[in-house]
């Protein structure tokens, strides 16, 4: 007596979900609910004129299509913020990467003992809370009592109003941001440096290469993928500059340090034009995507 093949079994197989999906499901649900959902809602918000009146009564929100985007492109303060953000990212970004690489080389050098301590010391600024950092740096930058002006005074330079002079406020923020953020990239560069085989350096030294030649022809090419990652991540972070100007200068003096994210925050939470702020957020997103695409084009080997 043979048992007939149960038809339910093949039906079962068609609807069967791979076990992998079940394992990933909790994280996916969280991502959809707390990330993808709000992003889609924000796109919708940017196409309306949601503001304070709409907070009180949702019927007061109107569909305006791309009007918010058009208005932003005609707003002088938007272009000022964009310029400030690009200034910060294009000067601060390479500076941070260079400092991180330098620190990584320092820490990784064979002559250095206690590498763990050195790493911890250089990483400490990254994990320090920004408000505490801002308080100390505001004292450092003080025009009359600050340490920086005191040091510059010894070299004969007049006291500079670092946070009050529109020309010097952004450089001051760049230096502070570099100091705060180089630790993270340094760790990644250290990992990258340690994966370069020692034999390459020994072979080059035997062939008579100087330290600079070894750096240029071995370290940099071998670090390619690592540097590519570090530059992209740094740029993505720096284009979203917000906390440093928020705590140090509140966007001043005379709008010299208003970044796109700070402008968006003001538009959304000071003037309560949330539709407009969502539009700025998407313009910033498109800027970051553009930057990332350009960087990929510039380093095809590294991206591979």
């Amino acid at each position, binding site marked *: 007596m043979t048992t007939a093949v149960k038809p339910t079994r093949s039906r079962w197989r068609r609807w069967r979900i791979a076990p992998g999906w079940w394992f990933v499901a909790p994280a996916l649900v969280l991502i959809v609910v707390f990330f993808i959902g709000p992003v889609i809602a924000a796109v919708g918000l940017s196409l309306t004129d949601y503001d304070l009146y709409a907070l*009180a009564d949702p019927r*007061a929100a109107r569909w305006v299509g791309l009007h918010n985007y058009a208005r932003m492109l005609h707003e002088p303060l938007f272009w000022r913020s964009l310029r400030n953000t690009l200034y910060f990212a294009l000067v601060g970004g390479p500076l941070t990467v260079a400092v991180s690489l330098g620190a990584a080389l320092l820490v990784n050098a064979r002559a250095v003992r206690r590498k763990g301590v050195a790493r911890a010391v250089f990483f400490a600024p990254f994990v320090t809370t920004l408000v505490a950092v801002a308080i100390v740096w505001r004292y450092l930058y003080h025009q009359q009592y600050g340490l920086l002006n005191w040091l510059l005074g010894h070299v004969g330079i007049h006291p500079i109003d670092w946070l009050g002079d529109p020309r010097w406020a952004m450089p001051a923020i760049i230096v502070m941001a570099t100091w705060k953020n180089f630790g993270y990239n340094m760790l990644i560069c250290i990992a990258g440096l340690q994966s370069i085989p020692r034999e390459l350096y020994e072979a080059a030294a035997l062939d008579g290469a100087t330290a600079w030649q070894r750096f240029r022809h071995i370290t940099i090419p071998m670090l390619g993928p690592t540097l590519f990652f570090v530059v992209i991540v740094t740029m993505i972070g720096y284009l979203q500059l917000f906390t440093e100007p928020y705590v140090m200068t509140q966007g001043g*003096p*005379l709008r010299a340090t208003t970044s796109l994210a700070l402008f968006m925050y003001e538009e959304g939470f000071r003037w309560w034009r949330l539709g407009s702020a969502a539009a700025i957020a998407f313009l910033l997103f498109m800027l970051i995507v553009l930057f990332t695409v350009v960087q990929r084009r510039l380093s095809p080997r590294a991206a591979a």
Partner: protein
Amino acid sequence: MARDTLLTRLCAAATLASIFGCARADAHGGQTELRVWAFGAEGEALGPIASDFERANPDVRVRVQAIPWTAAHEKLLTAYVGDALPDVAQLGNTWIPEFAALGALEPLDMLVARDSASVPRGDYFPGVLATNVVGGVLYGVPWYVDTRVLFYRTDLLRKAGVTRPPTTWSELRDDLSKLKRVQPAGAFPILLPLDEWAQPVIFALQNGSLLLTADGTRGDFLDPRFRRALDFYVGLFRDGLAPPLANTQIGNVYQEFAAGRVAMYITGPWNVGEFRRRLPVELRRSWATAPLPGPDSAGVSFAGGSSIVIMRRSTNKAAAWRFLAFLADPTRQARFYETTGDLPARRSAWSTPALVRDRELAAFREQLGRVVPTPAVPEWELIATRIAQTAERAARGRQSVDDAVASLQRDVDDILEKRRWLATQRRTPARADADARR
């Protein structure tokens, strides 16, 4: 094995106990808990007053949360969205139209009418009380007030040959020209920081401009009264009587005032204490305050300060009103002045000896009798910023007064477009029916 099971069971029991054992914050042995938010220095000064209130009202427990001013606006609005507003809050009076538009504030007309012994409307400066009225409804009770008056160097003015402070615009210009001749070279007689909206707005209000149309749906800047006020303001810069500088470019205003590089300054009551503290001892008697000069006679100023409001969603409104009335008591207002330096909102509180004897505050008392409110629209702060930016462009000579007025009118009409649209919505028959049914 047995120990592990016991440990597991103990942990489970402790977790369950802590979840179910959490008492609700509201009920503490029959006491009502009143949540109060206050900002800045006043928030910190409110603690002892709250303890006094608890002693006088044992059935109410007051929880004061002091929030810095920089975070106050955002915190209030996010609390509104998250339905986590307190029972009672301090609110800057320029914020009242905003929160009234949100429907977050409890109308206080009935409570004030019923309890007129504790909060008599007539005892408040009329101009100040008017800032708390939106659409004819009272939403807040003034707590402390401030306004702007003229601070000036009496010795420099005497040296310039002027015996009394100016009371009209033409006297002001004359005095400034005379002052410029006795000041050090390159100095400007009056300081009007270009990034502040207070000065152009004050001149406009003094000249009778309403800034916005009556229903607040359009700017009223093409009116000749506003144009004349802006022309007067810009003229002070054009003729070298005021420096074309923003606050960040000025450095230390107290040093400039002490050195005589600034002889006149329009500012508020907080600077009375600051001037007394920071000016050198020999200049102690060399400065004074005076009410602002107006176009033809003594001028008006605008009324600032904070009010106490009760939130509409509060479940403890009776206790909230008792706390509000407690703060409104004249003796307590006078004592509050002594702790914080904030001027009382009630006229009867001004007869306390500390305030009567204070020479510099006499000008404030007089000015408070001549204050007008700024337009009560939620967009006011944005409009005020635009006014400051346009006035700055005109003062720096980058735009003529006519062009400035036209561009300001365009900008403000654009800002108020939503308000205009909402006004038309309310007039449609369908909406009117819905409103009537609600």
